[in-house]
């Protein structure tokens, strides 16, 4: 069974309204450019994407409440951005590399990183969320925009080695103003690098609305670098999937970089330490609830006669299990011996570090001695 389409919508490249395949009401609409990129998707596959989103949302809300309960140090929630993250993640091949920011929780979940290890980062007992080479995901970045250069560099390397893998850079609306991001686009364009710039415009960079970063439409920036841009409804998983598939296809077939602006909304605070009431109205948040990325898939599937109740129940069972694992894992984390802080500063023993390690150990030993 393939997904049926009804009316036609405005073209994406006009940028007036983001391209959409599924309205907030759950109506499948036509799109000249995007349709063919999801033509193969049947209802079950859409239901699977829904299950992914439920899983990711549950993970995120559980981590958020664990942080509020003091079990983790900090959490940047992705609530509201599930379609943008899952839709783009599912457009990638396993061999494709991703370089994202602190808020990108979906791809690591979908690629099966070891959660207990990952959470150590948010409990501040480790910096190593996962093995980049095992999952083809660069460690999430806190330095805004830095990873976009890494994504381009990976793509240049893949091109050089002719190994058919591509990369995707995830970044926010705020990040678009960092010099690194502009420079990344220059390099991508100059070297025709097989990379996708995936910008989640979630409305805010901490307290600053997107209007501080750009007077008009973020997607328009790309044209100055000769990079084609697509602006999609980031809460529409079909549109996100289609646009990312399109962009990855361009990259893989030698057509170089693309830019996607996924228009979405950060439903939660910037992080667990933020207080959004200082800079945005609750009405605004409420107005986005109707545009929820999960709700519209449910509505559409329902209208197609899919057993949504069963789907919801199954997805929940799945997600609850992950949340349980997450909670147990987070609570169990204990700091490793502090002497490990001297490890891996260099690839081989380093005189100064080793001297300090010895001094540290002597200090710790003398301290224990004094305390006992």
């Amino acid at each position, binding site marked *: 069974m393939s997904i049926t389409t009804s009316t036609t919508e405005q073209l994406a490249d006009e940028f007036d309204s983001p391209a959409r395949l599924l309205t907030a009401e759950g109506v499948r609409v036509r799109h000249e450019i995007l349709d063919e990129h999801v033509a193969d998707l049947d209802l079950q596959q859409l239901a699977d994407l829904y299950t992914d989103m439920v899983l990711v949302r549950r993970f995120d809300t559980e981590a958020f409440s664990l942080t509020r309960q003091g079990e983790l140090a900090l959490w940047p929630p992705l609530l509201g951005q599930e379609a943008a993250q899952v839709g783009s993640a599912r457009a990638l091949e396993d061999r494709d590399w991703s370089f994202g920011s602190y808020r990108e929780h979906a791809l690591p979940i979908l690629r099966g990183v070891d959660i207990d290890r990952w959470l150590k980062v948010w409990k501040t*007992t480790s910096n190593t969320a996962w093995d980049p080479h095992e999952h083809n995901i660069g460690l999430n970045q*806190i330095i805004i925009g830095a990873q976009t250069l890494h994504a381009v560099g990976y793509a240049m390397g893949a091109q050089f080695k002719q190994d058919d893998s591509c990369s995707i850079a995830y970044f926010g609306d705020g990040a678009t103003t960092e010099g690194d991001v502009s420079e990344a686009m220059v390099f991508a364009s100059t070297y025709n690098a097989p990379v996708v710039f995936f910008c989640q415009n979630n409305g805010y960079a*901490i307290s600053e609305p997107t209007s501080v970063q750009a007077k008009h439409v973020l997607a328009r920036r790309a044209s100055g670098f000769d990079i084609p841009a697509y602006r999609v409804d980031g809460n529409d998983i079909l549109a996100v999937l289609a646009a990312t598939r399109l962009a990855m296809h361009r990259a893989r077939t030698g057509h170089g970089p693309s830019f996607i602006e996924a228009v979405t909304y950060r439903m939660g605070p910037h992080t667990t330490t933020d207080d959004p009431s*200082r800079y945005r109205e609750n009405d605004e948040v409420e107005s986005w609830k109707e545009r929820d990325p999960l709700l519209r898939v449910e509505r559409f599937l329902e209208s197609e006669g899919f057993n949504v109740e069963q789907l919801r129940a199954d997805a929940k069972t799945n997600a609850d299990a992950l949340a349980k694992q997450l909670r147990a894992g987070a609570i169990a984390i204990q700091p490793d011996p502090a002497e490990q802080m001297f490890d891996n500063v260099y690839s081989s023993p380093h005189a100064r570090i080793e001297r300090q390690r010895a001094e540290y150990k*002597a200090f710790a030993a003398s*301290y224990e001695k004094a305390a006992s």
Partner: protein
Amino acid sequence: MSAAQTETMAMGKAINAALADSLEEDPSIILSGEDIGQLGGVFRVTDGLQDRFGKDRVLDSPLAESAIVGTAVGMTYAGLRPVVEIQFDGFIYPAFDQIVAQVAKLQYRTGGLHRMPITIRVPFGGHIGSVEHHSESPEAYFAHTAGLRVVTASSSQEAYSTLRAAIKSDDPVLFFEPKAKYWSKGEVDRTVVRDLETAAVLQSGRDVTLATYGPTVELAMGAAAAAADEGIEIEVIDLRSISPLDVDTVAASVRRTGRLVVAHESQAECGIGSELITSICETAFTSLEAAPERVTGYDIPYPPAAWEGEFLPGVDRLLDAVDRTLGRKNSRDFMRGGAAA
């Protein structure tokens, strides 16, 4: 001074007051930084300033540190005195080029025909249990660069008065704010004037000089109190200015004590302690009765915060170094095999 002149303020509030008083006094002052307006800064240090002084004087800037500093340079040509905020220590590096290659050098390049009255505020230091890039102490990079003044503060009063002086200065000043102390309260007398070059002896003592700055000053006072219980007198110096260092004040102290310990959170190698100890060796060598000691963050990237208690100087590490200068039993005895037993 009458008691009525002092107010009790947390350090963050004292900085807010210094910014407000400066904005009030001098219409050429303009503030720029990420989230400093509507939000009042991620630490609320600039709370209320945009409401009070307007959006054209308190700018919520786009997210680009190089541009925040680079446009501040341009503003000085327009006759303004920009005070910019870098949100966290670890985010100053995109602006490094503008600070080091432009801000630091333009007075020299113009032969003094153009002045560079820029203040760059940087919350710095650890002990806040945060994730990567939020706890660094990058001051030595800037102290290494000619043309920049680098100062810090250890109390509400110092923060107020030093920031006021920094903003008034025609030189570019990096003002490192010990973020872990933003909520520590202290008395502030707004009439107290500070310069940007002198250290302060906070407590006198005859046995060992302990020189430090910013967030480590409180620990030094704690160490001095603990040492006093054992009959050891520590002279505590708050360096206040990191560049230039007030070598005279420290040397005068070392001539009395014969011993020097320098402490800071930033790493040892090519650090402020290295510079100070070298300067003391050059000026007061014959007064030294023991090798000077450094207590610093180790020479590793800032570690995951669960280990920051071990990584950063603490009272015990300070006292251990004091013991070394006094030839008392100390942790290094544990390194020479057997002594631990």
